[in-house]
């Protein structure tokens, strides 16, 4: 949109950067000094082009719609032709089940100690992939914090007042049925979530699903009893502390295990008997780390989108 941004002129580069910073901070980018805005030369020509642009808007819209329908239909047809050539559904000669799968299934139990082969795969053989996923979640929640958090940069006095009024209204509005049911059901949800996390290496589940359940429990608690009640034990500080320490623990633990494994050194982590709750080496602590990150992230998204603060 800003055609000056491609210039290599340092002054203009600086302007672009300033506008970007102002935009991130939620200020109007156009309140900057005049010389920072794109130069006004060729203004008449520009407006002429713009007029032309507006006149042809309807036509362009039509062409765009027809083209996009054609593209979508051709993509569907092409992919359907590909699907026709794929190996039949459910066949055991499917090329996707190759020697990698054989290795995972035949020696997964012995090498990782996890009864649940998928858990052994994602938290042992492919643990850095899961670390990347947790990092992506953390990054996403940090971006949402930048964009949505209620602070001096992001909010005007008017909106502040509106939110305060909303909160006042919420306090008066005591929904007795929701509160009673939530008081009964929230502990059960937490219990179930913790069960799913702790049994990640023994049964279907694990850090991601269990963390999502715990996060849902936190959200229900916040809806029923109010945001302030959650804030007594879960503030922004605890949120960042839990997320960062879990990520660092994950990184250090898995780094150690990969280092010893790749160099054929003796690892101090015991494998345990498969099937016990305290078995399968690092998978249980890693599941707990991932579960905590996911629970924090889920609640964080909810709180940031509704209240603008954790």
């Amino acid at each position, binding site marked *: *949109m*800003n055609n000056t941004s491609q210039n290599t002129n340092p002054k203009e580069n600086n302007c672009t950067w300033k506008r970007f910073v102002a935009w991130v901070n*939620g200020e*109007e980018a*156009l309140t900057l000094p005049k010389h920072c805005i794109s130069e006004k030369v060729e203004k008449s020509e520009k*407006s002429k082009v*713009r007029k032309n642009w507006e006149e042809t808007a309807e036509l362009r819209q039509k062409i765009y*719609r027809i083209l*996009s*329908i054609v593209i*979508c*239909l051709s*993509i*569907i047809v092409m*992919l*359907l032709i590909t*699907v*026709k*050539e*794929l190996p*039949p*559904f*459910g*066949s*055991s000669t*499917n090329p*996707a*089940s190759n020697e*990698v*799968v*054989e290795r*995972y*299934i*035949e020696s997964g*139990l012995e090498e990782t100690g996890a*009864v*649940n*082969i*998928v858990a052994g*795969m*994602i938290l042992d053989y*492919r643990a850095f*992939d899961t670390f990347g*996923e947790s990092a*992506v*979640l953390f*990054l*996403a*929640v940090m*971006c*949402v914090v930048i*964009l*949505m958090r209620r602070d001096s940069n992001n909010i005007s006095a008017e909106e502040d007042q509106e939110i305060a009024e909303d909160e006042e209204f919420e306090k008066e509005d005591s929904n007795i049925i929701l509160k009673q049911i939530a008081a009964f059901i929230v502990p059960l949800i937490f219990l179930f979530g913790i069960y799913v996390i702790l049994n990640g290496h023994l*049964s*279907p589940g694990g850090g*991601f699903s269990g963390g999502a359940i715990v996060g849902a429990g936190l959200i229900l608690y916040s809806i029923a009893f109010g945001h302030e009640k959650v804030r007594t034990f879960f503030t922004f500080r605890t949120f960042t502390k839990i997320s960062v320490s879990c990520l660092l623990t994950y990184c250090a633990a898995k780094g150690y295990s990969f280092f010893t494994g790749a160099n054929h050194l003796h690892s101090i982590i015991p494998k345990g008997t*498969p099937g016990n709750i305290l078995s399968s080496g690092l998978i249980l602590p890693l599941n707990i780390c991932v579960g905590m990150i996911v629970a924090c992230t889920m609640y964080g*998204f909810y709180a*940031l*989108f509704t209240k603008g603060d954790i």
Partner: protein
Amino acid sequence: MTQLIINHYEAAAVILFGIGFMNLLLQNNLIKKFIGLNIMDTAVYLFLAAKGYITGRIAPIVVDGILDVEHYINPVPSGLVLTGIVVSVSVTAFSLALVQRLYKSYGTLDMDKIMSMARKEEEE
């Protein structure tokens, strides 16, 4: 055609993908655009899950001590779907936050209106 009926999960995934992509291109409302993106994600999960399934075999959880490839389905697509879900949640949250900021400064979710307003601002 019979092949398509045998592969009906994959065919459904492909059609869903197309529907999502069409939504992404044709909707003017930004939130509906992201719903389209999520439909595309779901289609990819369906496709991966269908590719991992093998008839007559069970989920890869060793309960009775059988360590034979012939007994379990393919565990790799499950891991891939997990990655996909996490990334799609993150992308959706981030884009919805951006959409909310756009709504705050322009007062509309219509893509064309936002673009024309931005162009006007640019000129002034």
